[in-house]
Structures are given as C-alpha cells and as structure tokens.
C-alpha cells in the first residue's frame, strides 16, 4: 500500500503488543449504525498513471494566451531561486513552530518577512500573514472595531469588489454597518469619504492603487480620520509600494496587501498571502501568529511565536481572531522574492510595469471611441478604458483569438458595462501591447 511501510509481519507484531486480535477490532467502538452506507471511491493508481491523468487535465487549460488580466492578481516573473529554495523540505514539511529551538529557520524567516513588509508599508508592526488580501482587509476592519468599540465601516467603492463581497459575507452576522462611498469615474471620492466619518465610525477602508488602477494620496483623509477617532485602513499592491508614498507616510493605522505578486504563481486563486501591518497602538489587536526576537539562556539570539495571549488556543472565544495558522510557505516565498530582487530589482520591476501600462493606455486610447475611464487621473500598472461596445463582447472576441484583453468592470459596477480593466506587468512586451491595440481596433471596426 503506498506510503504505509508495515509488512504483514510488522502488523502481527504490533497487534501482539496491543493485545488486539485484529486491526478491525480497533474500530469496534464504531457501531453498526455509524458504518458507511456506501464507499464507492475509485481504486488507487500508480504514480505514473496519476501524473499522466493530471498532465491531461492541465492540458485542458489554455495557458498560452497573451493576457492583460489583473484585477489585483498579477503575473510577475518569479526568480528560479524562489522555487529552488522554498522546495527545501526542511521548510515545507515542517509545521507551525511550536518548538522554537527546532524551528529557528521558519521563525527567523517569518521575522525577516515581518521586517520586509513593514519596510514596504512604512508601518512598524506586522503579523506572520493571513490567508489572503481579502481576509487581511476584513481582519483589519475587525481590529478597528475592537479598538474603537464602534460598529460602522466606511468603505470606498473603489476597494476591490472581490474583497468587498467577502467583507459583506463575513460581517453579516456581526451587526456591523457597512457604508459604501461611490467612486467617481474610477477615482476615490476623498471629499465624500471624509464627510462620511463620524463618531460611530470604526474604520475607513481604502485601496491604493484602487481597483480601477488609479492612485491617490490619502494623507488628508487619514488626518481627518485620526481627528475623528477613526482607524485608517489601506490595502496596497506590494510591487508598486517600492515607488509609491507608503501607508506610513500617509498616516495610515493599518496597511494590508495581497502578497501574490511577491513570488507566488497565479495558480487559479491560491494559495496566496494576506499581508498585515499596523502602528503600535493596534498591535495587540492583530490576529494570527507573530514572531518576536529574544535570547536563550546563553544570551544567543533566537526567535519565538509571541504575544500569544491574543490567540485562540489560549483565549478561545475571546481571541482576536479564529485564525491559527499563517501562510508560512507563501510568506517565505515572498521574503525570498524580495531578497532576490532587492530594492533596485523591485523598483525596476514596478517602473517597468507602470511604463508598460502607460504605453498600453496611449496605444489603446489612440483607437477611435476608446477613452480612459478616469481621464487624467494618475495610474500605476493598471487602467480602465471605456469602449464603444460592451466589454464582455470585446473580451469574448479577443479571447477567441488568443488574447485576454482584461477584466470587464460591468461584472461588479452597474453602468460600467463598456469599461475594461487592463493590467500590464514586466512580462508584458511592447510588441504584445501593439498586437492588442491592433486586434482591438479590428474588433471595434
């Protein structure tokens, strides 16, 4: 039997020691009324046959197309060393570092990850990560609710709708009020957001770049929030964070991010990485694992899970969150990715993404009837264009020809049925952008 080493002789010896007549007798407490009514699973297969089956399934996915899909999830180059190093089994076959002396590799790596992400966001504290960027945003909102004792969340409509629907589901049983402030042509409405803050507001939630790709400076909003006792929460895109004014510089209290763009493949939606950082006042409200530096009896530096009095295994229902694990391997890959690229490499990557996106916007808006949804608002690696036709239609036509032109904003925003969200990364070539523009022009004729 695969992966079970016991020979019939081993099994006999073990049963003798146990004093049981048979393996079946070990299950005697499971009464007949609890036994399976059916167990119609296939017979096992050889490794070779399973691999062939999986190859065939992988082959049913078309991955050869040129893609301008983003919507918060981007196809970046991952240095080969990230795969090689993260596949060291000392990392990936370990578990949560409950025994710190035998887990210094994992613990120091998480400590370094925490350092790297705080440097990106400019806020001093981080946890060891949560499942994904959407969960991070929800957990940040809950930090604010606990910290302020207030129950209203003011959310910018330009925050990823993928995350806003998660927020809606998660908060549905918690008696929280979600107030959504409409965007203006894909730009955050800072005045309306500021006006919505009141004495009942726990947090204001924004995103930079926002779902439409446009950029804002939220400093004034965050200052107003501070004056009103409201916690400022911002979701960011870590690659662009090498260039953009940091959440810390803007005065945010909590900054979260989807870390997929740091060394994780798209992989059809996961596993991803929820990055969470915060200022000192909120650190004890953080969910999940955190690693801290300390010393052993001989004064040697070491790392441990810390501030565990927040956590479920001690506090049970009074814990800050039910989350008990982190995305350790994903966090490790993100750290490796950041170290391999370094400051210069990440900056170059971000600049290339923005440069390509700006070129693409120029080429696409040169087509008759195609305009930028957000006009002259600044944008990073992604932007929305308005087409003279329904965006779904354009996507359907171009996808059939091997090019996925972007994301249809009408899927989440009523009235934007003609709007298409287009993303570029450093992997997008100028030539591909040219082909896209020509294909779109042909389609719209």
């Amino acid at each position, binding site marked *: *039997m695969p*992966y079970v*080493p016991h020979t019939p002789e081993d099994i006999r010896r*073990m049963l003798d*020691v146990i004093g049981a007549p048979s*393996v079946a007798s*070990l299950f*005697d407490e499971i009464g007949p009324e*609890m036994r*399976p*009514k059916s167990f119609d699973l296939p017979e096992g297969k050889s490794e070779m046959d399973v*691999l062939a089956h999986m190859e065939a399934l*992988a082959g*049913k*996915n*078309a*991955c050869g197309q040129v893609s301008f899909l983003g919507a*918060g*999830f981007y196809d970046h*180059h991952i240095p080969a*060393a990230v795969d090689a190093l993260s*596949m060291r*089994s000392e990392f990936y*076959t370990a*578990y949560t*570092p409950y025994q710190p*002396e*035998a887990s210094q*590799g994992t613990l120091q*790596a998480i400590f*370094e990850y925490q350092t790297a992400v705080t440097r*990106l966001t400019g806020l001093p504290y981080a946890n060891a*990560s949560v*499942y994904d960027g959407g*969960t991070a945003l929800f957990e940040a909102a809950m930090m604010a609710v606990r910290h302020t004792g207030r129950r209203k969340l003011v959310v910018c409509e330009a925050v990823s709708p993928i995350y806003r629907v998660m927020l809606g*589901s998660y908060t549905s049983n918690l008696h929280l009020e979600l107030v959504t402030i409409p965007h203006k042509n894909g730009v955050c409405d800072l005045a309306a957001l500021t006006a919505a803050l009141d004495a009942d507001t726990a947090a204001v939630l924004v995103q930079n770049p926002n779902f439409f790709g446009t950029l804002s400076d939220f400093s004034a909003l965050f200052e107003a929030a501070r004056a009103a006792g409201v916690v400022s929460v911002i979701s960011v895109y870590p690659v662009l964070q090498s260039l953009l*004014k*940091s959440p810390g510089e803007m005065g945010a209290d909590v900054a979260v991010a989807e870390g997929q763009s740091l060394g994780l493949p*798209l*992989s*059809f*939606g*996961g596993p991803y990485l929820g990055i969470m950082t915060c200022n000192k006042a909120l650190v004890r409200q953080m969910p999940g694992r955190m690693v801290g*530096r300390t010393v052993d*009896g001989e004064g040697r*530096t070491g790392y441990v899970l810390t*501030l565990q009095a927040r956590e479920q295994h001690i*506090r049970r229902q009074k814990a800050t969150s*039910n989350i*008990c694990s982190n*995305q350790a391997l994903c966090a490790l890959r993100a750290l490796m990715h950041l170290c391999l*690229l370094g*400051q210069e*490499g990440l900056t170059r990557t*971000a*600049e290339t993404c923005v*440069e390509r996106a700006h070129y693409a916007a120029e080429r696409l808006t040169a087509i008759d009837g195609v305009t930028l949804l957000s006009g002259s608002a600044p944008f990073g690696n992604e932007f929305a264009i308005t087409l003279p036709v329904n965006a779904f239609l354009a*996507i359907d036509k171009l996808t059939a020809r091997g090019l*996925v032109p972007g994301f*249809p904003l009408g899927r989440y925003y009523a009235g934007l049925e003609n709007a298409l969200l287009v993303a570029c990364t450093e992997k997008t070539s100028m030539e591909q952008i040219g082909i896209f523009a020509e294909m779109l022009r042909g389609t719209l004729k």
Partner: protein
Amino acid sequence: MNTVFKKSTPGREGVWPVKPGKSAAELLPAGLLRGKSADLPSLSELDVVRHFTQLSKRNYGVDGNFYPLGSCTMKYNPKFTETVAAMPGFTRLHPVLPQLKGAGRLCQGALEVMYETERLLCELCGMKAFTLHPMAGAHGELTGVMIIAAYHKDKGNKKTKIIVPDSAHGTNPASAHIAGFEVVNLPSKDGIVDPEELAKVLDDDVAGMMMTCPNTLGLFEKNLPKIVEMLRSVDALLYYDGANLNAIMGKMRVGDAGFDVVHLNLHKTFATPHGGGGPGSGPVGVSEKLVPYLPVSRVEKLEDGQFYLNYDFPKSIGYVAPFYGNFGVVLKAYAYILRLGGTGLTRATENAVLAANYLRKRLDKVLEVPFDRVCMHEFVASACNLSECHVRALDIAKALLDKGYHAPTIYFPLIVKEALMFEPTETESLDTLDQFADDLIAILAEAQKDPAFVTGAPRTLPVSRLDETRAARNMELTDDL
C-alpha cells in the same frame, strides 16, 4: 545567525530585471511617490541562496525527523504531488478567467479538478455537497458555522448558542464567536461527551454543536447516535471538525453518522505539506438541507460535459474567499486521493490507528495515560507522574528534540494536566516507532535519576530554551524595532 538585512551590501546586484526606459519620477506625480526608500536588502543570488539554505538547516521537518505532533497528522508528503501542483497548466491560470464570458473553456481542466475533488470528498464523507473555498481548517470552521447561522435565519429560528466540548481545539469556540454566536462550554466525562451533561445545556436557543470525532484525546465518541438524536429534537445542527478524519476513513462516514456540516483539513488527512504553518485547505461539506447556503461560486457540470461556475444561489452565505480556495493545495490532495483510492485511504486509517495504539502500549508503563483504552489515530499521555522530580511535559518535549525528534503536542487538550499528545501516523515504520519509544523511555529514566538532564534540554540545537517573556515584553517583531 545574522538576519538577511544585516547581510545587505548597497550596490550588490541581485536578480535584477532590465532597467526601464523611464524612472518613477518621470512616470508619476512627485506627490504620490514615497520619500523614504523601502530599504530592501541588496544581495547577490548566492547570498540569498546561502542564507535560506542555512536557515533551512535550523528546522525540523517530516522528511528529516519523526514528527509525532498530535492533532496535526504529520504524515509523509509524497513528492509527486509537488510535481502536479507545479504543472504550468495549473500555475499560470488567472483566477478570474472562468468569470469571463467565453473564457470558461480556457480552464476546463482546473474546473474539472475542483468538481471531481468535491465529488470524491462527498463520497468519502457521505455528504451531499462540498465547497473547496475555505483556506484552512479554522476558515472551514467559520464557513461551517456561518452556514449553520444562515440555515436558522432562513427558517426563522432565533438561535444564539453553539455548544463546544471542553476537549475541542481553541479554534472551535473562536470560530463560533466570530460567526456571531455565544459559546457554551460542555464538560467531558471519562474523556468523551456525556449525554447527561449535554441535556443540561441543550435548549431551543442552541443552533448547533461542534464535535471532533475521535476527539482530541484520540477517543471515539461512542455516544454519538444519542447526541445526534438529542440535537435533532431541538433542530440544532451537528458540526464535524475534520481535524481527526485520518482515524475514520472507510470506517465511518460523517454524513451517515448524522453530522450536518463537516470541514476537512487537506494538509492533514490528504498529505499536503504543512509548509511551516500554511498554506492549508479546509473544504466544507454539508448535508442536503444545507446545500442552498454554501458559499458561491459553485462548480457545476453541464449535460455536454462542460464545467462552469454558478453564482446563482440566493440563500448562499456569500463569499469566504476571493476565488475558489487554495487551488494549489487542492491539486495535491486530489492527486493523493487518486493515488490511494478508497482502499488505500482505508488502509491509511487502519495503519494510523494501529501505530497509535502500538505506541500507546509501548509507553503506558512509563507515562500516565489517563484514558488507557483503545485509542484511534492518537493518544494523550500525561507527565504528571514526573512532577515529584519537578519534570514537566515541556522538559520531555525538549529532551526529545535533542534526540532528533519533533516533540508531541504538549499542554493540549487542556483537560489533561501536563499533556503529551502523540500522533505517529500511518507512514512511520515500526523501526522508527520502536526507536522513538526506546529513546523516550531512556529519557524518562534519565529524568528520574537526574532531572537537570531534561530541564536543561535542548543542548544540541542552534539555541537552547528561549526567553518568551522577554519577547512578549520587548515586542521586537522586526529588525528595525
């Protein structure tokens, strides 16, 4: 060992892309750019490779060390599943593809994997439908309890409480609380749930009860049929925490036994690597009456054999994940299930239970085993008998590290003092189990002669016992604090 940031040398070239034609200052308004650099390290590729290779050597993992960490099912992770998850046909798939009109045909293979995995899990557990969206066990719990809440809300039931036995994982009460319920703690009797105790707390306000079966003591909940009957009498739902599913595959199906909701831990039962603490995957299965409340989207199959995502479930709890869960983890579990088949999974369970009972019998003369009867896939011992020589479970754990073993789970479940929870799994050979038992027996003998031998452990690792109080007080969570 220095942090990677201390090894940085400004100007040293890493894996740099080609320099772009324009700088940030030329591309974006100055007011949107950061003033202070993020100050990521500058290192050569070899610097980075060596740093992380050296870090990896400061870790125990299943491949190098027996890892009998109770409740975590640290079985061997077959290598071929990594090959599967790394296939470009899967890794390159953008998650929004199937949401685009006409693009669902570009990811039929991935949708088929999800559909088939759900069907296999349904048959394995006797449930009507599964969702793969929850991204970890605790996330599955939250999803499951949200489904329970949605069910009662839809029926107009005013239910406010969830019962959780005292032997449960801490995530159970935390998940119930986050889903908006009041948690009622249920004391165990003789290690299991006692119907008489349950009767004392069961009333019309109870929305459901979360059970782990076998429970965290490794004991089968033999009063289950009675418990099911009692809960049904007040229209309360029964939740199965799948942490210990490795004990019952092929022997019991949770649906047949009367459970309404179940979450599984693919990283435990289905051998996907634990990754140092994640990523996991926590699919949730439900009985027929709860199908309408499952999260969206749901993968479905058309008559022509095409797969698509259906979002049209008005009673759904909504979205618990950005997409379809940790697909990369699901792939590995799917491949593992196909490799073992129904017979292989049943054998895995049988041998896991056999190994746990063998180890229990090898150790029950030297350690107290509070409930010393046939256990399932794990058992809990207590180091209480060593208290007169001032040796604690923690000390035993540390001494095991010196012998090259990961320690068992300690101080859990909370209802056993000085608990040591052993789960050997089906993949460890008899030689390993014997050597481990011999070494542990030797440690216990030495501890009685010379307590300092264990209270001073570990001595052979990069660090000895660490000052956790100092860590919590100083809150040095980054290199910059």
